[in-house]
């Protein structure tokens, strides 16, 4: 093989990588530039810290990745996070941790069933249904607690703290849960029939139906998956705080969506990846962390975050398109 030829192949390969991994490069640049400013930034301790901080968002993002790939949408996850956190904390002392966890997961499934029925079977627009659910679930949470705080009475003795504060082999449990979920979801998405169906559904709903895929059922199931991951996040949140505020999840829907979309999952379905979602989640996490380390006022963070969201997505679409402007 001549040198010239390998050179060319390499160049093409590199271009191809840049095209598909725009977001990864963006992430690397971010890490690099902040690490120039602060040597603490890339310390093992800080990395573990950020990983732990993002794990709740990350767990939710896994479910939302599935949902977005299948061409649906969920704005109610923030409220559901509030509800499940409140439920698990509230029930912990009353009926014990295990039943509390089971019921909490049950709540996640139930809300998934409701959303899934409305969107999958009754075919209502998922954005509007879940916009309605956002308000409804927040109201349910408030009605359930009467608007007061819930807390676990002896936080230091409860083993329940394990999910949010514990360690496995010196790695925080939430990080393990999040990591495990990323691997699990990545495998499901890429190796199973269900995963393939998600792509098919998001790619072309009609064609999926004409292929004998039970479109309603897959949508239904996927909302349940989202409900479950959100409930799991609620359990982690409860365990991390050992207490619950009624509005604890407020705004999470947008954080999660931002992360998933930063990772390059299409808002219209048909494409996406759990690994890239992981990167999107990490970008947001490291960004917040970097801001505080660099001592920016919080509102400057918001302005920069604006730039980052647009910049990252722009980089992604522009690299696919081959030019900056369409």
């Amino acid at each position, binding site marked *: 093989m001549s040198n010239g030829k390998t050179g060319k192949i390499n160049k093409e390969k590199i271009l191809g990588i840049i095209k598909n991994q725009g977001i990864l490069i963006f992430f690397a640049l971010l890490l690099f530039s902040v690490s120039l400013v602060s040597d603490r930034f890339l310390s093992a301790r800080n990395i573990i810290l950020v990983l732990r901080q993002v794990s709740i968002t990350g767990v939710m993002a896994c479910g939302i990745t599935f949902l977005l790939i299948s061409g649906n949408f969920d704005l109610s996850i923030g409220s559901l996070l509030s509800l499940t956190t409140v439920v698990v904390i509230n029930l912990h002392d009353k009926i014990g941790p295990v039943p509390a966890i089971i019921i909490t997961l049950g709540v996640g499934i139930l809300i998934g069933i409701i959303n899934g029925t409305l969107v999958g079977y009754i075919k209502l627009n998922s954005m509007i249904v879940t916009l309605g659910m956002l308000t409804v679930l927040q109201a349910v949470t408030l009605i359930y607690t009467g608007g007061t705080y819930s807390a676990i009475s002896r936080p230091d003795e409860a083993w329940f703290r394990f999910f949010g504060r514990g360690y496995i082999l010196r790695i925080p449990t939430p990080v393990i849960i999040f990591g495990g979920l990323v691997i699990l979801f990545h495998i499901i998405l890429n190796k199973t029939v269900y995963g393939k169906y998600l*792509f098919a559904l998001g790619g072309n709903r009609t064609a999926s139906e004409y*292929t*004998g*895929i039970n479109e309603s059922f897959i949508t239904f199931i996927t909302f349940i998956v989202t409900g479950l991951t959100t409930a799991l996040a609620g359990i982690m949140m409860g365990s991390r705080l050992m207490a619950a505020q009624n509005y604890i999840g407020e705004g999470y829907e947008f954080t999660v969506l931002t992360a998933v979309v930063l990772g390059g999952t299409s808002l219209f379905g048909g494409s996406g990846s759990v690994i890239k979602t992981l990167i999107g989640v990490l970008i947001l996490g490291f960004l917040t962390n970097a801001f505080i380390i660099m001592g920016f006022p919080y509102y400057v963070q918001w302005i920069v975050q604006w730039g980052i969201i647009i910049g990252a997505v722009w980089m992604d679409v522009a690299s696919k398109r081959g030019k900056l402007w369409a």
Partner: protein
Amino acid sequence: MISIKKTKEKILELKNITKIFPGITAVDDVTFEVNAGEVHALVGENGAGKSTLMKVMAGIHIPEKGSISYKGEKIKLKNPLDAKKKGIILIHQELSLVPQMTVAENILLGSLPSKKGGRINWKELHNRAQEAIKKLGCQFKSTDLVEDLTIAHQQMVEIARAISYDAKVVIFDEPTASLTQEEVEVLYKNIELLKEQGIGIIYISHKLNEIFEVSDKITVLRDGKLVDTLDTDKTDEPEITKKMIGKNIEDFFASKKISKYGDEVIRVENITRKDEFENINFSIKEGEVLGLYGLLGAGRTEVAETIFGINQPDSGQIYFKGHEVNISSSKKAVHLGIGLVPESRKEQGLVLGMSTLENISLAKIPYVHNYGFIQNKEVKEIFDKYKDRLSISTTGPNQKVMNLSGGNQQKIVIGKWLCLNPDLVILDEPTRGIDVGSKAEIHNLIAELAETGMAVLVISSEIPEILGVSHRIITMHQGEQTGVFTDEEVTEDKLIQSITSHAEDICKV
């Protein structure tokens, strides 16, 4: 009033045009011209670059190389508006209408007449639209919503758009793909009308008989390159075909073999869906090809979709392999052993963003999984097998289907069902928009399927096709079954009569 120009003035000339897409040179150094009052046909296999060349002409694509001259003067077309201003109108392969808007607004889309102060001049809008509609002899009104029109009528709207505009060149990109014979006649008349007005016309079609009927000149493209430009009356179908695909082609319909029929696979009795079709009866045996012929809108697709479980019949029974079945979903149909190659490849048949392998195996994977996990090895074997069997030309299992030519896309859809080895395959317009070569292959395939003992239902609006592939033909008209013909007794005339005896014209001229 209309001066018929005898000396043909050159309106538009494309010189040495090259258009490159990432990874493919879609048009390669092509020179092409259009003369006033002349129909210039453009032919070539799927993916030969016909549409791309036309999009260059209409200002949608900007060529990498080459020049365009308009009435002898070099011009640059930077966007569709530039081309429109020059009177170059492209009627797309895929209809480009806004379904929610009225016929009039669609006709004058992008240049709605307005009074001073920006207010739309509705009167003028409707007058101009109505005038165009009237010229075409269509029955719909300028105030109708496009979404309420049939496909044929929608296409008329596109033609009306070209007429209403001061067109100099009108490009028809596969205008007849979803038109019936009669509508095609109407179209021809309209083309004649345009010709008389001294408009230059470019006509793209895969149906060579049409090409020979309407065109004055034929240009053949292959793999983006110009093969030849010939005068229509100095050539014939075999020659053009040969130039298109680079080799001789046997008569496509010769492959029909009467095989031995086996047991009955499906029998439908009096199935009815309100407002769609009524009392449909037929049965198909193993090894038999049943043709279903009718006009667009006859309800054939609805019958097919009902058998496939997309919709449920209001009344009537379906027996599958001797048992009465209730096919409540497409999933159930697939379980029973029914496959449907739908009429709209892109919307209903394929997930365009997915790879060839993924598309071909999409229906199969629920049958070969291992605890939900896809068996990659088996799937790859399936892919290889059907790629060979259907001679699908693709760069590999990972190629996105959106990058395949229409014929190969259609084969992927067929392959999706074949790998399930179904008892009944329904093909709805299996060769729509597909070039002659691929068409012949698909016809051969249909015969092969029957030979292996499958029952096949073919829906087609093309008489030669339906005659060529079917062992038996039933006809439908406005939701009613109007005839059953065996292979021996059927003739073209009988078919036409059966579907037109009570048909009113769609668009009278």
